[in-house]
Structures are given as C-alpha cells and as structure tokens.
C-alpha cells in the first residue's frame, strides 16, 4: 500500500440477508474509498443500510457481492479470525450502544484491545487514555456504574488507545442528550486530530456530519454525495 492508496476501498458492495419473510437486500452496490486521515460522514434514513455498511467495511460481516479492501488487504481472502487480526491495533469501532464489556472495569475495557494486540504496556496506556477523556477518577468503575456519556467516552478511549489508522463510528452520539453528545463529538474530533486517524461515521446528527471532510448519503442501499 502506498501513501496515497485508500485505507478503505469498497467496490460495488452488496449485502443480502435472509429473513423469515424472504431475502432482504440491504446494500446494492455501495462504493467508497477513504484516504488516510480523511473523515467521512454517512447520513441517511433509518433502515437504509448505514450500519450494515460499517459492519461490512470493518470486516465484521462478509458482503454478498463486491469487494472490500481494508489497509490494502482484500477481506474476501481472509476468514473471520484473519479479519480480526487485520483489525487488531489498526481499525477501531465506536457504537451507538457503547458495547463496553460489562464484567470489566473502565480501565480494563480500554486495555482490552491493547492486550489482545499483545501490548505489554496495556494498563498504563489505558490509564493514560482514560485521563485524556476525563475519566481518570472512574477507572475502577464498571460500565453499569457510569453514565451514558461516560460510557461513550470510555468507548472512545478504548477505540483510540490503539492509535488506529481508521475509526468506524456508528451513531456515536445517538444515545446521548444534546449537551453530552456535543461534548463527546468535540472530544472525538480532538483525539482524531491528535492521532491522525481516518474516520468513517454514520450519523443522523447533521451538525456532527458537518464536521466531516466529506458527507455521503445512503439511499436504497447505495452511496451518493449528500
């Protein structure tokens, strides 16, 4: 991969899922290329396939058709564990529902991807990142002891602690009140600027989308300029 090659390259990606009422076409030839450091926002109505696009792009799910290249690697050539290894330390995700590990403390949650990547300084780095998101004093707390905003800040720290090249964010402020959402958005863009990570973000929040370099609209399973 050269410096100018895209970190993420989706080419005519389709996703059809089975259901009891028959197959549902979710993505119908979506294409997207994301350059290093670029911030892309994807907007669109509910059910248009935005979250599915993130799932396919991050290698959490195989597309039914089309090609996905992440960090220059064709994901179709990798099995699930291979895709997990590719994400490890290079790609990170933030979810609308936070998805912190409930039996781990805030610090352990942040340390988890570092530990999985085999980093010996996982605990120190986790403490450092919790401090950066303003939760140094809550590191021993479990997710259920944290507010929604605190949980999302922890999730942000967990995602960025590995210093990923690419962050996938699925409605990162969707579960938060306006004030907390603004605070989390500010923090996320600050940290992205600091780490230089690229961003692929799905959101309904137009002010958040406005902060991206590029905005795309997902409609009918395809991407187009917003």
């Amino acid at each position, binding site marked *: 991969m050269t410096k100018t090659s895209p970190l993420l390259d989706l080419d005519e990606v389709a996703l059809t*899922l089975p259901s009891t009422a028959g197959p549902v076409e979710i993505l119908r030839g979506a294409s997207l290329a994301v350059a290093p450091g670029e911030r892309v926002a994807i907007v669109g109505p509910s059910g248009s396939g935005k*979250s*599915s696009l*993130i*799932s396919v792009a*991050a290698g*959490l*799910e195989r597309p039914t058709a089309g090609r996905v290249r992440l960090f220059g690697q064709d994901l179709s050539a990798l099995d*699930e*564990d291979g895709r*997990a*290894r590719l*994400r*490890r*330390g290079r790609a*990170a*995700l933030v*979810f609308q*529902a936070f*998805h*912190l*590990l*409930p*039996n*781990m403390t805030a610090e*352990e949650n942040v340390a*988890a*991807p570092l*530990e*999985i*990547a085999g980093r010996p300084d996982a605990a120190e780095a986790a403490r450092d990142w919790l401090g950066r998101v303003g939760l140094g004093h809550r590191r021993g707390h479990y997710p259920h002891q944290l507010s929604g905003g605190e949980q999302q800040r922890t999730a942000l720290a*967990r995602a960025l602690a590995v210093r990923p090249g690419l962050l996938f964010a*699925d409605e990162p402020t969707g579960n938060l009140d306006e004030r907390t959402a603004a605070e989390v958005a500010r923090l996320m863009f600050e940290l992205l600027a600091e780490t230089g990570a690229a961003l692929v973000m799905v959101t309904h929040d137009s002010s958040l989308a406005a902060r991206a370099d590029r905005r795309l609209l997902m409609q009918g399973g395809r991407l187009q300029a917003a």
Partner: protein
Amino acid sequence: MTSLSLRYARRELRAGAKGFRVFLACIALGVAAIAAAGSTAEAFRHGLASRSREILGGDLSVTLRGRRFTDQERAAFASLGPSTDTVRVNAMAQAPGGARRLVEVRGVDARFPLAGAVTVSGAPSLAAALAAPGPPGAAVEQALLDRLGLKLGDTVMLGEVPFAIRAVLLDEPDRLAGGFEMGPRVMASREVLERTGLISPGGLFVETIRIALPAGADAVAAGEALQKGFPDSGFRVRDRNDAAAGLRELIGRLEYFLAFIGLAALLAGGLGVNGAVSSYLEARKPSIAVLKALGAEGPLVRNVFLIRIAALTAAGISLGLAGGAATPFLLGALFRDRLEVPALFGVYPWPLIKAAVFGALAAAAFSLAPLGRARATPPSSLFRRDLTGPLTLGPESLLAGLAALGLAGVAVATAPTPLVAAGMVAATAAAWGLLWLLGRGAAALAGRLRGATRGALRLGLANLAGPASAARTAAPSIGLGVALLTVVLLLQAALLAKVKEAAPDAAPALVLTNVTPADGPALDAAIAPLIGGITPDRYRRMPFASGRIVGVRGGPIEPEQVAPEGRWAFDRDINLTLIDSAPPDANLVAGRWWPAGYDGPPMLMIDDDIAAAAKLRPGDAVTLSVLGRELEARIAGVRKVEFGRFGASFALILNPSALAGAELTQVVLIKASAVQAGAVQRLLARRFPAANVFDVREQLEKAGELLDQLALAVRGAAAVVAVSGLLVLGGAVAATAERRTREAAILKVLGAARSQALAATVVEYGSVGLIAAATGVLLGTAAAWPVVRFAFDFEWRFDWSVLTVLLPATVTLTAVAGALASIPALLSRPAPVLRRE
C-alpha cells in the same frame, strides 16, 4: 490456553454464579447421588472387610451337608490351629402349650466363637446360659418367645429333648455369613443337640468347623490346600476373604443401581446445563462480538467462556462431592442402631473420583456444543441481535460427542455386569433422545394449534412454540424422571403382585421336610382327609437332598466360569429330588424324560437357566457332590422350572436309582386353605413331631413387607431424577424471565389482568407437564414390560396408579412450579420495565 484467556475469564467470573444456579444444582445433584451411592457402599465394604474374621467366625470355615466329618478330616483341621465345631439344623420348637414354630437350631461347642463374641441378655454369657445346672440350656431369639408366648426360664421342646430358655440371643459375630433363615434362631450345646435325634445321617443338617490360623498364616493357601487334600469330600472351604460374599455382591449391585439413577439425574440435568450455558452465552453475545470487533480471535473468546464454565463445573462437582461424601455419615447417624451390616463410615476417595469424572464428562457433553457457538458468533451480531452463531461441527461438538461416549463408557466399565449396564445406558440414551425429539415436536405442534385458539390459551401455546420453549428443554428432562419412576413403579407392582397374589395362589401353603421314608405312607393317609384327598395337584411327597455342581463335561467347574445369571447354582448347595416318570409339570424344553423304572447310569434333569449359563445340553455330563460323595450324571433333559410354585420346582432332578440305597428324607408339598393348613399343623404336632413345617404364606407376607420398604427407598432415589427435571424447568423459566417480564408489561398496557397472564403461564407449563408425563409414562412402560416378562418371567401387570397418580401429579407440579417461577415477572410494574427498553 493463553494468559489473556485466563485473565479475561477471571474478569468474567466476577459475575459469580448468577444465571448458573440451575447449572450448579444439576451438576451437584447428579454428582451427589453418584458419590453418595459409592461412598455408602464403600463404607459397608470396608465395614465387612474389617470384620471379615468375625463374620466367618475364624480364618477358615469348612462346611458339610448331610454327613459328619471323618476322623481323618478332623485331624487335618486340628493340625491347622484351634477350631470350633457347630451343627445347624431346622427343627420344630414346641412350647408346653403345644404351639409350634420352625426354628434354626445351632449346636455349638465350648470354644465357640473363635472370633468376636455372642451377645445375650438374661444371662452373663452364652457359655453361662448353656452350661447352667439343670435341664440343658438354650439361648433363643426374642421372635420365638413372642411367637410361642414364652419367657426366660420356660421350657421348649426341640426334637425329643426339653431345653430351658436361659438367655435371649441378641447377636452372633458370624450371623451375616449364615444366609437365608427359615425361622428364629436357637443356640444350644452341640453335645445336647446330638441327643435330640435331629442330627441323623442323610438329614438336612449342616456341620461347620471354623479354624483360627496362626498369626501371619495365608488363609487362602491354607483353604486351597485343604480342599485339594480331600478332593472327594464334598465339603466347602471358605476363607475370611470370602466372608459374606453374597452380601458384598448385593451391595455392589445396589450401588450400581443407585449410581445409575445419579447418572440419569445428570442426563436429565444435562438440558439444564445446556440451557444455562446457552442462555448465558446469548446474554453475553454483545461482549463476544465486541471482543471480536476489538481483534480477538474465535478460540480466545471460546477459551474465556470455557474457563468460566470449567470453574463453575468444578464448583458444582465440589458441592456434589461434599453432599455425597456427607451422606453416609448422615445415614450412619440416623440408622446406626438399626444397621445389621457393619459399616466403617469415612471419606473414600475412589467413589468421589468416579462421581467427579461422571460430573465432568456430563458437563462437557452438554456445555461444549453451545460454547462452540461462542467461537462462531460473528461480530456483526452487534448490529443484529437475532444473529446466532451457527451450531457447526467444530472441535467443540466433536469433544462434546466424545465426552458423551466417555460418560457411557465409564458407566458400562464400572458396572458389575457390563452387558446389562450397556443395555441400561443405551435404553436411557435412546429414551432421552426420543423425549428430546418429542419435545421439539410438541413445540412445533403448539405453533400450529395456536391459530385455532384465543386468549390465554393462545398466549400459552405461543410461548410453548417460541424460541425459548420449555417443551424443548424442561419436558425431556422431566419426562426422563417420570420414565424412571414409571419403570420403578411397574417393576414394584409386578413383584408385589407376584408375592402377594400370584405366589399364594400358585405356591404350596405348607412345605414339610425331615419326613422319613418310613413315615411317608402313614403321613399320606393321615393328611388325605384333611385336604380333601391326595391328588397330584394338591399333595406331593418326594425324596429330598441337596447337592452342588462341581464339574461339567468331565472337568471341574468354578462359579467364575459361569454366566452371572446362573452362578447361584454353582457356588452353593442346591435342592434336588428323585422322580421316576415325568410329572405333569415336567415342562421339558430339550431332551426327554427317562423311561419309567429306568435303572441305568445316573441321568439328570436340569433347569434351563442353569443349563444356559453353563452352556449345557442334553447328553453333557454333570458331576454332583451329593451326600458327601461325587456322582456323575448325564443330562437327559432341560426343564423350564417355575420356582416357588407347587410341583416339581427343583433345579435338579435325578432318576431314583442314581441314589439307590441312600436313606433320603422326604419333602411334602401341600396346597391347602388356611383352615386346612391349620388342621394339618395340628396333626403333625400330634403324630409326626419330627417333621419340620415351613409356612409359605407367612414367609410371603414377610417378603411383601420387605419389598414395600425396599420399593420406598428405590422410589425415593428415582425421584432424584424428577427433581433434576424440575430444576431444568426452573432454569427454563429463569432463562425467559426478562422476556416474560416485558411480555407481561405489554399485556398489562394492553389491558390484560394478571390473572390472564397467569392463566397463559399455567397453560404453557401444564402442557409441558402433560408432554413430559405422557411420554415418560409411555417410555417407562415400554422399558418395564420386557424386564417383567422376560427378565423376571412374571405376568405383566399394569399399575394404574402410574396413570391416576403419577401423570396428574406431574402435570400439576410442573404447572404450579412454572407459574410460581413466573410470578416475579407477572408482579412487576409495567412502567419501569418499558422504560428499560
């Protein structure tokens, strides 16, 4: 297993046993049952072993029937060490008022007992009771005093000698080695017993010499040398290691039966284990997906949960082992005074190891497959909660299959009779599989039927058809418990019917022994008017002897060479008779009866089960030890003998000339009403006092009572499996608690009353109970029928209480338990629940 897996598993363990209570209970219950059975049996085995010398009454015992030891034999015994000589004979004890009772009299010498002590009350010691001045003394069991209305100091006639009752016999050290007793025991001096006329040549007495070997002597070698030194003597030598061999075998069989019930409980609880792991992993699906999204590979995620399940399994096993190890102590504390078999209560490692292995294998068999789902759960399930990892044929499923095979293998390998155990394990596994399939079928049927219903019934059927249906989880487990209870109830019904109804009809009312051939015709003539005439269907008089099979086809045979089901005929003396021409109940299945008046080389009729066990056919030679000598006879025919019935119910029948010249006593079988039997008893007391009378009805009543007690214990043990099934039901309810709470909240918002939601729950769990009970009763009946018909060879008798009690009780219990477990969900207020959404 990496340190990262261990670290994450430790974090998972912070959640404690939440959601795993049913898992823990299912494992602990099964392990406890197996450990308790093994530990209790081991306590008895150690107890027997620790007192083997007392039980045998010495280091060696030499037993001879129907003749006395020769001087040469006695000299050989005396050369080995101090010995004691006892004679045992059945006789009628008669009170001064004329009341009579068959007793077992033992004549002992002054050195008795060589090991242990005889306990008596009413006299300082047995020796003091027997040697007191005045008429000869006797020590008798309290049962005889009660039966004949006697007290200490009274006189009782044994044969022609009056004995003064000077002590109540409480216990003898070698009582357990004695075997089945025909009546209360009486102990007297051997010298005096010789004078009663009861010990006559060819009579049914048993003489036993017990020997104390010098310290350090090899009892086994000494016994073998003794047997070899007198190859044709016909006596039986046992060493202290053989003491109570039959009892040890019984303990082994009971242990296996109870452990098998424990195994069935583990199997029934298996669905609880499976359900608990599946529910847990379903709840942890977001965490699994997050770990994968963070870059964790499938095996790492699987190992995290594998370690947690393993830790919980270890906890369940530990709880079970603690309960199982404590059970013998508890039983000992409760029943110490009533235990007739010596027990050494302690913590024995082997039964606990065995139970732990069973528990671990069961946990692996039922939890590894769902763990495979943890490995296969895709990270995309973060976006779609309904995505379930496919149940693929991965290493986890393979290991689960191997664990299931291992479970069956260990169950068979540790059984006293592996073939029977293999049948039991296969039948249980097949029943379980069938119940599981029927459960799934019932869920599908509920789905089809709900369209035609409405209201609470429709909601109940919808839940029954739903993804978390208890029909698929709890119904098979409860069904397995019901099936086992059905088998136990039906076997018990068949046995009780046999003992209480069929046997009293078919068996003789009275059996007379010790009738001399000279008395025979006079006895016939005296009894004929009392029972309405002598016909072959109500009166038979036959010569009677006992003998032992010591060889077949010209060579010696040891009991170990014979199939277990027929071994009883080769390791002890069995009764035989002599009959000239074929009786009406000959029941020949192979060969033919000898011609009337046949006086050629000895010929033999043999029971078909004994023949099958030793692979004997007509024409084969059988060597018998009879009346102290060996006799070779050829098998003329194989008979189907119905023991306990009136008629020629003898395992062995010889042609009369085979024992020509022997003065055999006779046995008389009489079918009579209770009134007629009473008249016969009075006649015998008056005119034939030497004849022993065995009252069959009385013994059958006793056997019925014993069977009732035993059946109660076995039913209790089988109920453990049903408890396991109810635990699984609890687990199934708990697994759906969150969904039920939401459902109840929505129903309330829509205007439904709690009673309507409760009615739906009762429909749902009542249906689960009905499915479990109906299939359990059907399968249990199908399993019991061949056992009753072919293994027991009894008439089939269906116990309707299975349908009238077990079935409704299961339905009610399941419905009530399900409804009770659902009450928290039904009571929750809708607003907070819906706010959580």
